């Protein structure tokens, strides 16, 4: 018990951020209509590509004078992260564009 309290105190800022972010995430999308399920999922998917920042930091400080596993895997992480980010946002936009197109049209031939 004492150890748990100790951990809570040591990491209180992190725990606050987790707790509040979970609440925020639930609040923000709680009443999403089912039309938007796919775009919301794929947009959120693109946001999880935020891991790219980790990839940039890793590769940014890697030793480039020789080819190391760290460098190769770091570059791979950046490529994968960007794929997730770019692909995710573009595909979401493509879907939403379709929804939009119809809204203006309203009627069909």
């Amino acid at each position: 018990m004492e150890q748990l309290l100790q951990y809570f105190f040591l990491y209180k800022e992190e725990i606050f951020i987790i707790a509040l972010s979970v609440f925020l995430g639930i609040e923000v999308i709680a009443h999403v209509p089912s039309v938007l399920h796919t775009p919301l999922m794929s947009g959120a998917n693109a946001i999880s590509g935020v891991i790219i920042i980790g990839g940039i930091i890793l590769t940014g400080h890697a030793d480039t004078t020789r080819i190391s596993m760290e460098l190769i895997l770091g570059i791979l992480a950046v490529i994968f992260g960007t794929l997730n980010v770019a692909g995710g946002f573009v595909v979401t936009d493509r879907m939403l564009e379709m929804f939009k197109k119809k809204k203006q049209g309203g009627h069909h031939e």
Partner: protein
Amino acid sequence: MNNVLGTFEGIPYTSGEAILELSYLIAALFFVYGLKLLSHPETARRGNFFAAGGMILGMTTTLLLHQNAEGQGIALTNVWIILTAIATGSVIGWVLARKIKMTAMPQLVSFFNATGGAASMLVALLEFPNADMDNPASVLVTLLGLVIGAIAFSGSLIAYGKLDGKIGDIRAPFLKYVNLLLLFLTVGLMAYLLVPGGTPETSAWIIYLLLALALLYGVLFVMPIGGADMPVVISLLNSLTGIAAAMAGFIYDNQAMVLGGILVGAAGTILTVLMCKAMNRSLLNVIVGAFGGGGAAASGGEGAEPKEATLSDAAILLSYSRNVVIVPGYGLAVAQAQHACHELDALLAAKGVNVRYAIHPVAGRMPGHMNVLLAEADVPYSQLVEMDTINPDMPNTDVVVIIGANDVVNPAAITDPGSPIAGMPIIRAFEAKNILVMKRGRGKGYAGIENELFTNDKTRMLYGNAKETLQKLIGEVKSL
């Protein structure tokens, strides 16, 4: 940018570092606001731009301003390497996202999710040697980033393969125990590494073993999951990728990563819960996979044969109706019949028939699949009606046309408590005055659940590929 502003807990910090942190705050706010806008139809597209803007901001400032513990920024060579990697990823991502057919959307979303999981896995793997082994919290976030990222990666790849038809379902009762064992081993190894005393060098082999176990678990946990459960699994994997990114965020003490990751984790969890509710099943039930058993004994019995309709009968029935409801399912996507379907509904509308679509939340292979599919064919948004709204209108519906859907209209969910889908909310097609079913073959639906709707007196079947059947039907309606 390199002038020292002051000291924080004894360590000097520069204005560049302060600006970097500020940019992360702005990026995080953009994520939240973007997600908020994304959940309303009118603002969704703008929301996507906001989230993307936040991401570009975070990436740019990291590249320009990040300093390591020794206070060194990112060297120019590294900047070029990173920019090249980013350009490569962007071009591939952009091309895939733009060029792939809309009907392949579930696969594509899974594929992008896999890349996110892979990135988290790699980052955590590379950061493990820098973890403070005497600090369990530091080790824990690294391990969680690695394991969750790996599961999301391999799981999403399998989901991609299954959605693309490259991988079939593998169902074996023992798989349940294998998965449980893998999960135990993974958690056990993580607990072992959390005990202070080891060094990153002595623990290296355990890390690779852990990585292998997590990858294998991801494969085996998605493998037995059937097509109808795919929406649940896809949202779950999506949420896992977010959590993995958040864990990696703790490694760097980066609040934008933590907040972004947790937001996605929470959003994915909500979708997962929604999908489970739409099937009246628990998440555990989906993962362990109870479908396929049990119900077989409950049904059977009657053995009445479904009655077939001719195309001209169907055409006359539809043309002289006042209210028609179309229930699309995965079969519509497989046959890529969405355009033909819209052509039919437009043709009927021109004859004064009121045509609407009834959308079940888990119809298809991902959340919202039918909405995306029909939107691609330009079916107006106002014609798509959610299950709960359309059900009360069913008794006044002259014809309900079921295209490639099965379980979501199966009355056994209401009438047969022993059925595997008992209690699942369904579209009450059986209440309509006439029922037309377009079905590829005479076989049973997913997991062989008998559907008594097909043998209902009001039901007429149209067998064959949905697209061809629709095209012939359109011809018949036109010739009337």
